[in-house]
């Protein structure tokens, strides 16, 4: 940063200063925080992949290893089986990739390895010597049994940081139990304090997002960066870390646990009210359906029977005292409970509900052009670090299927020079090269056209 600009920064107003230093369009001009750190992620679903993804967003070189053919299960996970992103992969000729996959796999290189083959184990062992961080979420002890767990990696490379993530952890009475995000929420206690009380007609409710997975990934990523810090600055030693999903849930129960310990009180659900603060809750507001209301709330029937609120002429002024975003939660959008509601028009502004969110969406590369011409809103970054430096995310478009980076990564890291398009690397089919564009290009294009046409008609 030049001296002139620096001087300027000191004189400008604080808001302008923030606008300048956090300018998200300048992202790619700043260095990446974790550049040079190599992460190998043998994970599926959300918990593990999101952890590796946060590291990748901060600039680590992240290699994701999936099973060949179908890839990881999140690729087949998409709301109501409706939206899929293309290109069609060789292994899923009729489907693209489900949207569930894209929140936790950006910026990564994709390999496919079949761990049932001895060659795959050899490759993992060779990777161990050159890898800083392993993220893994197979059943506890599985990798250890296969000879590619922490204990074996640490012999080759004592600086390895190995993060295991999963449901109940590798030890203790529940160690053999399987887990998912909502099991963490349910059995960890988060359900029991969310939603309205039974007397108010409510029941324990899910936090709508896969929160225990995404948050668990975040806290694991924090721990990994802390361990990298310790390794590089203090000890030169690696680490074995374990994150248990149900444990994360208890971390969130903060005061409820202390209160139970002190008084035996079992925390209850209070819906949208907050027992700690008054007035502090989510109230229905905005347009009103009372007779003679200044701000009426009308409906009209839209195609497919959707109930769409009609925009009133008057601004929704009756909730001026209440912070804006609540309007979104309690007002208009609340009435849409059917999927695939299309905006009536000019809806962008109102949906975002909150200028800042809206702006931060606009600041980002709002749409990433993916293969196949479909557009997806890019996920925004929660950090906006500043100045001429940036531990910050940037997104490369996700690759299409499991394994497109086989050639690049395997030859660069493992010296597997023999990898050529369409040629098997090992007799045991350990590494399969995914044949991408060339041979099937024509075929896929045709298919895509058909599919797209069909899609738009829906």
């Amino acid at each position, binding site marked *: 940063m030049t001296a002139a600009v620096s001087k300027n920064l000191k004189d400008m107003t604080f808001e302008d200063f923030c606008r300048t230093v956090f300018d998200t369009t300048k992202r790619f001009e700043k260095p990446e925080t974790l550049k040079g750190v190599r992460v190998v992620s043998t994970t599926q679903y959300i918990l593990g992949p999101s952890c590796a993804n946060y590291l990748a967003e901060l600039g680590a070189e992240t290699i994701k290893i999936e099973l060949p053919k179908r890839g990881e299960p999140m690729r087949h996970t998409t709301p109501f089986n409706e939206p899929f992103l293309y290109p069609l992969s060789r292994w899923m000729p009729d489907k693209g990739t489900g949207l569930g996959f894209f929140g936790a796999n950006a910026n990564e290189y994709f390999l496919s390895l079949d761990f049932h083959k001895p060659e795959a184990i050899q490759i993992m062992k060779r990777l161990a010597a050159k890898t800083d961080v392993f993220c893994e979420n197979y059943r*506890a002890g599985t990798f250890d049994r296969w000879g590619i767990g922490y204990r074996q990696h640490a012999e080759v490379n004592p600086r390895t940081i190995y993060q295991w993530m999963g449901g109940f*952890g590798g030890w203790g009475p529940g160690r053999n139990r399987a887990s998912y995000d909502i099991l963490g929420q349910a059995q960890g206690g988060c359900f029991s304090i969310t939603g309205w009380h039974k007397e108010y007609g409510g029941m324990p409710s899910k936090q709508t997002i896969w929160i225990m997975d995404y948050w668990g990934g975040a806290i694991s990523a924090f721990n990994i960066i802390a361990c990298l810090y310790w390794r590089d600055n203090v000890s030169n030693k690696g680490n074995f870390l374990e994150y248990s999903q149900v444990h994360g849930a208890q971390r969130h129960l903060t005061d409820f646990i202390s209160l139970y310990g002190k008084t035996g009180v079992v925390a209850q659900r209070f819906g949208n009210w907050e027992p700690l603060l008054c007035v502090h809750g989510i109230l229905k507001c905005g347009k009103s359906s009372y007779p003679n209301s200044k701000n009426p709330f009308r409906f009209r029937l839209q195609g497919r029977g959707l109930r769409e609120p009609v925009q009133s002429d008057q601004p929704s002024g009756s909730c001026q005292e209440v912070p804006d975003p609540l309007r979104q939660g309690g007002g208009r959008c609340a009435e849409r409970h059917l999927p695939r509601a299309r905006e009536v028009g000019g809806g962008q502004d109102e949906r975002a509900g909150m200028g800042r969110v809206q702006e931060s969406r606009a600041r980002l590369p709002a749409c990433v052009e993916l293969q196949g011409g479909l557009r997806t809103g890019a996920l925004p970054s*929660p950090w906006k670090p500043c100045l001429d430096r940036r531990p910050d995310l940037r997104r490369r478009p996700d690759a299409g299927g499991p394994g497109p980076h086989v050639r690049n990564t395997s030859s660069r890291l493992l010296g597997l020079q023999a990898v050529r398009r369409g040629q098997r690397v090992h007799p045991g089919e350990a590494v399969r090269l995914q044949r991408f564009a060339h041979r099937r290009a024509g075929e896929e294009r045709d298919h895509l056209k058909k599919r797209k046409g069909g899609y738009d008609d829906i």
Partner: protein
Amino acid sequence: MAEKWRTEKKRPKIKVLPWPAIPPPTVDEVYAGVDEKKKGYSLWVESAVRQQFNADKPESLDGLRVLDCTANQVIGHWCSSHFSELGAEVIMVEPTGGDPLRKLTPFGREEYMFTAANGEKCGARFLSEARNKLSITLNVETKEGQDLLKSIIPQVDLLIENAAPGHYDKLGIGYRQLSEINPRLVYLWVGERGQWGPLKDQPGAMDPVGQGAMGFIHGTGAPVAFGGTPTRSGWWLADQVGGTFAAMGAMAALFAREKFLGKGQFVECTAAEGVMRIIDYNWGWHGMDGSVRPRYGNWDLAINIYAVNPCADGQIMVGGGHDRLWFRIWRAVGKDRPELEQHICEDPKLRVVTDRLPHYMQVETYTTMCDWTKDKTRAQCEKSLQEEEVASGGVSFLDEVCEFPHYKYRGHLEICDDTNYGKVLIGASSFIGMNTPGRIKWIGRTVGQDNEDVYRRLAGLDRERLKALRKGGVI
């Protein structure tokens, strides 16, 4: 009089057993009957990471000094808890008189507060985020206060604040001024809606603003057709998620400072954006075809079976959308009700994993499933599903969570015997690790308890000077 009636007469006396009411299982009980080869790994992990050995191990962030200048919001305290659990020296800089969060207690009941040895009362929410932190007071509005803060800054690695946007800058202790004193300082601002942008100055600094801001509340709870409303999370989700992201951003900045940058930087993280990052596929879906993700209650739009459904004594979670688990789930159901298994497994529309996702398919699945669960308790459902190795578990209430053998055995909850507050049950650090585990050393401090220690150590103040500052309302 009314007060007396409310607090003393009406409430029944509850005899509270000390926690744990049932002792946790012993190692022998847990591994009884498991053959050597199978338990080898578990025993190794256990010996490597068990919390009872924590005190012998180093701490990864030992030597870092964090000033947590936030007040009245959980996000900053939650963020600095990450650092304090891993060994950084975290100093809470509270306004004189203490952080207003100290006074928060459910329904304003004083008997739910924790009393320190000196008689000071503190709410549980604040106390659980005061772990391992020192507490000093400082009035940054005064000139002396600002000078005092500036004199400490050269010895600080990370400063966290959540004042109104630009307020610290106006006071002369913002990033622009402090980075001149200490270029290696990482300066983190946390909040709900950011320091810039059209809504930066709007009122609303608490968690529901963050939760409501990005569609979380809109998506949580049952759909209107099921009698539901948009619902907030019972814990302070936006603050706690945003706080973790803030910690990650700040930690990455510290890592970069040591690795190649040589200087600190300004980092901003808001609760709303933390949750925006992790709100599943909402943006992608909206970008594709304008869809707004609907509320879907305790079911999941993208996975079937993956839901919490009612059973005889509460609710039971069952999960497993993919073929391997799908058929196991129905096998478990079929042991009692073969006709239900047959109904599902013979349905050609439910054969392919993605074909099960549309709404009407989910309705069919869960209607059939509830036909089985309605007669069974959570424990019975869990048992038959776990025999098939399916992820399942009952919805647990707080007492069940605190007494769950697995959590007790693994130390997810622990009793911390604190010099100030006595024995307090607390959710333990979730950083489990072999070499550098997270740990809880003390629960928290009373307001300004470490004033003397910290100001003597970092600012070189003597007794007279401290007295003068105290008299002037600076500390």
